[in-house]
């Protein structure tokens, strides 16, 4: 991009000055070239089409009224009834109903056309709103037509388009009048070669500042100057107006905030459902491979022991029976430990006493010394407490496994009664990142189900800070 504007002219510029000069030169070139770029042409076209759209919107009511009148006049007129009555009693109500019913459809079509124009000429893609849908799922019911928010929003855009099209017309005017003004000196002499006695009226000159009159050849140079200025300004004006138009288009012709929120909610709901299903599957596996198999084995061992003890009288094989009973005893204790771990994994009972108690148990059990600070004047919702607990448990487990840290600091603070702010810091080697399928990605998913947020700062070499914000209520 950098290009020197002056060659060896004896002045040694510092690089900074050179760059500044180059920048200034480029700015001048950009300004001068602006009217001749493809972009300027497309923006001009957009403004021109905008004017047409504005006119269409302005004309629409008149066209409709005209049509209604024509229909009224063409209707067969019963002799005893004047046409006016027919029009008032039948045509106008019917017409109004038709307009109201068709309004949102027309609005949508109008919006779609506008979005296409913007995509073609301004390279601005605006997502279309979701298709029309009524509660009953049918698209063409009156309720669906009348309750079609995006359709009405598009009509609203049509109204806003009227003042916008005035501005767009202004930009077009700048272009056209600029070119016309520039042309004045060239044709002046051709058409003003009248005898000195003849006095011609002045030639009007259109500028953004108003109408001026050119009476002399000298005056045409003023017109020329004004024309050049207008031509240089026109592309920027067109650009500004187009941008304004797009800024209005986005909320009015886009999917809408609500639709966007619905999409996000649908995503997070799907995640929550997946998470719940995965959790249930994991539980089933844990039970199937753990406690259940231990208990079945235990039952078998006891069965064998009771065989060794016989049904009555002296036991046929006391020693082996003793050994089997001891094994069964061990098995029962193992099964209990298994179940206890499992239960803690589902919902740690200590969590019922509140997050601080649960977390201090967790911190105390962490192999790396962990310092816990909490500031929770009010309790978060149970679901949030559970998510917070498991997130911190996962982060501590991660730190233990990967960080080589010697200290961990956990802070849990309720901020402004709305946000539960969690930070887990360690002085380890860093390098933690959210990678697909990794533990942190799992946490992100879990956190996003309640519209929470997680930030990971973990440069290579450490230290690592992981900050999680959760809402206080799910």
């Amino acid at each position, binding site marked *: 991009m950098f290009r020197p504007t002056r060659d060896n002219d004896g002045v040694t510029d510092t690089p900074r000055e050179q760059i500044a000069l180059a920048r200034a030169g480029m700015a001048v070139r950009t300004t001068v070239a602006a009217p001749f770029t493809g972009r300027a042409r497309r923006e001009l076209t957009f403004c021109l089409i905008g004017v047409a759209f504005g006119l269409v919107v302005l004309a629409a009511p008149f066209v409709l009224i005209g049509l209604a009148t024509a229909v009224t006049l063409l209707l067969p007129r019963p002799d005893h009834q004047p046409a006016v009555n027919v029009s008032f009693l039948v045509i106008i109500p019917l017409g109004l109903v038709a307009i109201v019913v068709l309004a949102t459809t027309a609005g949508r079509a109008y919006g779609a056309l506008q979005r296409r124009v913007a995509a073609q000429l301004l390279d601005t893609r605006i997502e279309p709103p979701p298709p029309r849908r009524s509660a009953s799922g049918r698209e063409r019911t009156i309720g669906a037509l009348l309750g079609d928010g995006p359709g009405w929003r598009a009509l609203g855009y049509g109204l806003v388009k009227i003042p916008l099209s005035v501005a767009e017309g202004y930009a077009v005017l700048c272009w056209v009048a600029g070119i016309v003004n520039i042309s004045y000196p060239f044709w002046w002499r051709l058409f003003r070669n009248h005898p000195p006695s003849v006095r011609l009226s002045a030639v009007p000159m259109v500028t953004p500042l108003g109408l001026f009159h050119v009476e002399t050849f000298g005056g045409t140079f003023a017109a020329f100057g004004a024309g050049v200025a207008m031509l240089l300004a026109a592309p920027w004006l067109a650009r500004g107006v187009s941008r304004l138009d797009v800024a209005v288009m986005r909320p009015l012709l886009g999917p809408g905030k609500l639709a966007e929120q619905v999409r996000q909610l649908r995503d997070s709901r799907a995640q929550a459902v997946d998470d719940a299903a995965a959790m249930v599957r994991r539980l089933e596996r844990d039970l*199937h491979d753990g406690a*259940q198999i*231990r208990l*079945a084995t235990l*039952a*078998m061992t006891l069965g*064998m022991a009771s*065989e060794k003890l016989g049904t009555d009288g002296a036991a046929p094989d006391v020693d082996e029976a003793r050994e089997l009973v001891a094994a069964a005893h061990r*098995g029962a204790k193992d099964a209990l430990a298994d179940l206890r771990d499992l239960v803690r994994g589902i919902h740690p009972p200590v969590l019922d006493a509140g997050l601080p108690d649960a977390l201090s148990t967790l911190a105390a059990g962490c192999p790396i010394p962990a310092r816990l600070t909490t500031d929770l004047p009010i309790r978060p919702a149970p679901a949030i407490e559970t998510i917070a607990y498991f997130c911190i448990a996962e982060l501590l487990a991660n730190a233990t496994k990967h960080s080589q840290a010697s200290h961990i600091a956990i802070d849990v603070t309720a901020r402004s009664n709305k946000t539960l702010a969690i930070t887990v810091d360690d002085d380890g080697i860093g390098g933690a990142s959210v990678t697909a399928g990794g533990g942190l990605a799992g946490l992100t998913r879990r956190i996003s189900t309640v519209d929470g947020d997680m930030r990971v700062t973990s440069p290579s070499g450490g230290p690592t800070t992981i900050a999680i914000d959760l809402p206080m209520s799910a």
Partner: protein
Amino acid sequence: MRRADMRVVIAEDAAMMRDGLVRLLTDHGHDVCAAVGDPDSLRAAVAEHRPDAAIVDIRMPPTHTDEGLRAALDIRRDQPGVGVLVFSQYIETRYAAQLLAGDASGVGYLLKDRVADIGEFLDALVRVASGGTALDPEVVGHLLRTSRDATGLATLTARERDVLALMAEGRSNAGIADALYITAGVVEKHSANIFAKLGLPPSDADNRRVLAVLRYLRS
């Protein structure tokens, strides 16, 4: 009905349970040719040892879904002489139907919990090894509850229903007599009544009788 020196292959991925089964069978004088933890080793061991029976856990690696069942079906198809006792922590009637499709000889489907009653479990294994059937009471109970011909079953007395259930589990008359604390003669009388009431062709062979009963319950 006790029979010693059966040759058995065990396929069970939980080591604890596998070791327990090995000990149990060896204790009772049976020969455990191989104790493996995955379906491929099971197929290899069965092909190599041609045992009297294979005890097969349904859920095994790699996916822990129904690998064991598929291996069991393969063995039944390829090695008809090997009794297959499928062993599971829960009962799926669909699996039972697949195992029993066409032929109820030398096949069993039992809950793992049944090992707690050592005698009954060994009985079932012996039955399967000698070409009989061992169907878990859970499966039979389900079939009895969901049988479409409720009217036919309603004509049976409570005792006859008990006998029918035990028959469906694959037990012999002597086994049924033992379980219900009645004589074999009484069992024979009951079973004749059952077959007459349900309109089934009388059959002496245990496994053909099982099949008739099961077919009746499933139809």
